[in-house]
Each structure stands twice: as structure tokens, then as C-alpha cells.
């Protein structure tokens, strides 16, 4: 693969780095596809190659690479953010964009009012939760899985599971009290 780096012919170090970049590109694409939801369809198969090129560009911006492995990881972070931003601007977003949903409601005052009331009830119900349970529930509803929640809050596994389970039960109860059965 031409990367722009192997101008004088690939030596062993370059080959290792190239293999690492290829592996990282796969990891980045999978991570972005996982969180992309409906947008994932817009992330084309050829994105892997684009990410490889993007990673090399990130790497070539560095003046020195004292710790190559961690330097690649930092480049991968920047490339992941770039790919997420570019994928969120894809046409596939339009159908699930909340603005589009709101626009759809604009012609139906009843649906719009119902939607607003539901949104307000969810926020109110969340606010009634005990702080740690509220954090766990917000994270769970935002799509983080248990292991990610453990990492974010530095909670042991059982604590994270317990806070999510109890918090979701509390949330449902608070929603029922507000006339919403989810």
C-alpha cells in the first residue's frame, strides 16, 4: 500500500508501522460504526482506506515520534473524531434528526404538545433520581454499556449494574406518576 511514507523503500520498521496503521484503521471504523446508529449505512466500505490515509497524515504532522505506539493512538483519537464529524454530516442523518421530527410535528399541534410534555416529563423524572443513579441512568440512556460506565465513573462492575438497574426502576416509577408508561 502506498502511504506516502515509504519513499525510499519499506524497511522493517516502516512495515511494522504500516501494519499498525492498517490495524488501527479497522479499529477506528468499527468504533465509529458502532456508535453511528442509522448513520452507519452512510459509512461506505472504502472508508477504511480513507482512514489509513488520514492516519498517515496525522502521523506526518508530528516532528518527532519518541513513543511511536502512543503517538499512533493519539493520531487515532483525532482521526476517530474527524470520521465521526464527517459521518454526522451525511444525508442519512436527516431522517432521524430531531429537528426533522420537530418539523413533522409542526403541522400537528396535538402531537407537538404531547411531545413537549413527554420531553419535560422525562427531564423532571430524571431530576428526581438520587444523584449517582441519575448519572448511571443518563449514561445508560445515552448508549453507554456497563463496562463503559464503569470506566467513566470508576465504579466496580456490581456498583454500575446496581445503579443502572435501580435507577431505571426509579425512572419508570417517576414516569408512571407523570402518566407515562414506557
Amino acid at each position, binding site marked *: *500500500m502506498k502511504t506516502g511514507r515509504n519513499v525510499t523503500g519499506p524497511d522493517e520498521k516502516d512495515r511494522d508501522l504500516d501494519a*499498525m496503521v*492498517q*490495524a*488501527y484503521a*479497522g*479499529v477506528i471504523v*468499527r*468504533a*465509529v460504526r*458502532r*456508535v*453511528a446508529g442509522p448513520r452507519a449505512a452512510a459509512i461506505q466500505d472504502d472508508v*477504511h482506506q480513507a482512514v489509513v490515509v488520514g492516519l498517515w497524515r496525522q502521523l506526518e504532522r508530528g516532528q518527532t515520534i519518541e*513513543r*511511536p*505506539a*502512543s*503517538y*499512533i*493512538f*493519539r493520531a*487515532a*483519537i*483525532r482521526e*476517530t*473524531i474527524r470520521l*465521526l464529524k464527517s459521518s454526522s454530516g451525511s444525508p442519512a442523518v436527516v431522517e432521524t*434528526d*430531531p*429537528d426533522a421530527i*420537530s418539523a413533522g410535528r409542526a403541522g400537528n399541534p396535538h402531537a407537538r404538545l404531547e*411531545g413537549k410534555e*413527554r*420531553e419535560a416529563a*422525562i*427531564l423532571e423524572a430524571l431530576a428526581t433520581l438520587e444523584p449517582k443513579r441519575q*448519572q448511571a441512568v*443518563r*449514561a*445508560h*440512556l*445515552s*448508549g*453507554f*454499556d*456497563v*463496562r*463503559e460506565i*464503569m*470506566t*467513566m*465513573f*470508576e*465504579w*466496580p*462492575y456490581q456498583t454500575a449494574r446496581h445503579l443502572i438497574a435501580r435507577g*431505571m426502576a426509579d*425512572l419508570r416509577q417517576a414516569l408512571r406518576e407523570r402518566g407515562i408508561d*414506557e
Partner: protein
Amino acid sequence: MNSDEPLKAAYRQTLAAGKPSVDHPDGATWERVICEEASAEERERVREHALRCPECADTYRALLELRTEAAAIDPGVPATSTPVARTSPRWVYALAAGILLAAVATPFVWEAWQRDNAESSTASVTRPLLSANPAFRVEKAPVLLSASLALTPRGAADDRQRFLDEFGHAIAPYRADDFAEAASRLTRLSDAHPDVIEPALYAGVSLLLSQRSAEAVRYLERAKTRATPEFLNEVDWQLALAHVHANDANRAAALLRIVCDGSGPHRDRGCAALKVLAEGR
């Protein structure tokens, strides 16, 4: 957790319909957080922002995923500070209670074992003493990809990508804590690719978390035959737990001795479990 999906959708919609988020973390901030270089205050600020901003929640999730998978292929990736095996007072009390219970009950267990048919009595009497002990609590193993899989030679890149796609599909319910579905998908994938460690390992853990210990042993033994050094400690630990839950204390003890004598992340729990096992036998 699938029944939470409507609430998740409603929550994201609620956030998106509210005031637009401001003060999104910039690239340098994300880099510090994911590289474990941010201060506690900065980490908290980013975390709280992400819980109220769907776009940044996606970024955070993707970067956590990136770090987890990258750790399997790159030794330069910073270790996470997740307290997977943090000792808490409750854990200490539970462990102490377990040891005390085992110590008190051992003579009675021994009498019962001698009285009855050896095989059947061992199964019926030791099970509540050992597998219910907190020392043998089963926990979800973090998802890692072996370097050999991620760095397959160029010629095999297509096969590798196809396999990774299949693995991604099979591991998804595991990530979402739907272990029954994960077990179903991962056992199928492992049977189709018996030479690859990842499906066998996570099939075994999923089966174990679904209380199907005997089947878990089969897949974890398959994983052990293929385990590379980065997986060995995890496989030995999970297989030891599977043997305990399948009432095979002898095999469990042999593996726990290896885990306890090693320097892997399960060493402390392995030593504690070995002690409980010795007291309970």
C-alpha cells in the same frame, strides 16, 4: 436491556430538542481524557457534558471503544483506571462470611460425602458452598482482539475483515449484556472458526453468565488451547470459575494455582478463590 430502547430514543430526542449544547470538548480535551491525562475536574466536566449532549456521547463511546480495542494491538495505549476488582468493605464481609461458612460446614460436608455415593453427593453438597461464594462470582470479561487477528498478513486482509464483521455481529449482544443471545451467536461462530480464540472465549463467558457451566467449560477449554499470552490469564480465570460452577473442584484448583502464581490481573482474586476452595474441600 432491549426494553430500554424506546426510553433511550426518547431521551436522545429530548436532549436534541432542548437547548443546543455549547462548550463541546475540543480535540485536545478528548485526547487528554482518553489518554488518562486530564484532571479529575476536567474528566467530570467532559463526562457531565456528554451525558447531556448526544453528539458528544457518541464521541465518548467511540473513543472508549477505540481505546479498548487498541489496547489489544498497541502496548502504548494507556491503561484504563476501571476498578474491575476493587475490594470494598461489603466484599470483604462477604468473603469472610464465605470462608467462615466453609470452615464450619466442611466437617459436615465431609461426613455427607463419605456417607453417600461419592459423585452425586459431591454435586449436591458442594455446589451451594462453592459456586455461591462471592469468591467465584462470574464477571464479564473485557472485549479484546488478539494482535495476531488484528495484524494478519496483507494477503489475508479480506478474510480477516469478513471474520471481524462476523465477530462484531456476534459480540454485540455481549456488549449489551444480553448473554443468552451472545452465547447463541458466539458458539455458532466458534464452531465455524474453532482455531480462533475470541469467539470461544466470549462464548464461554456468555454461557457461564447464562448459568450453562458445563457448556462454558467446553468452549473455554477450546479457548485455552488457542490462547496467546495476552489472553492466557483471562482464559485460565474464566475456566477455573466454570469448573467451580460445574462442580469440578479439582480442575478449578489446578487452574487457580496457575492464576495465583502468575502476575496477571486476576492474580489477587485467584489467590483468594484458591484459599476459599481449599477451605471448602
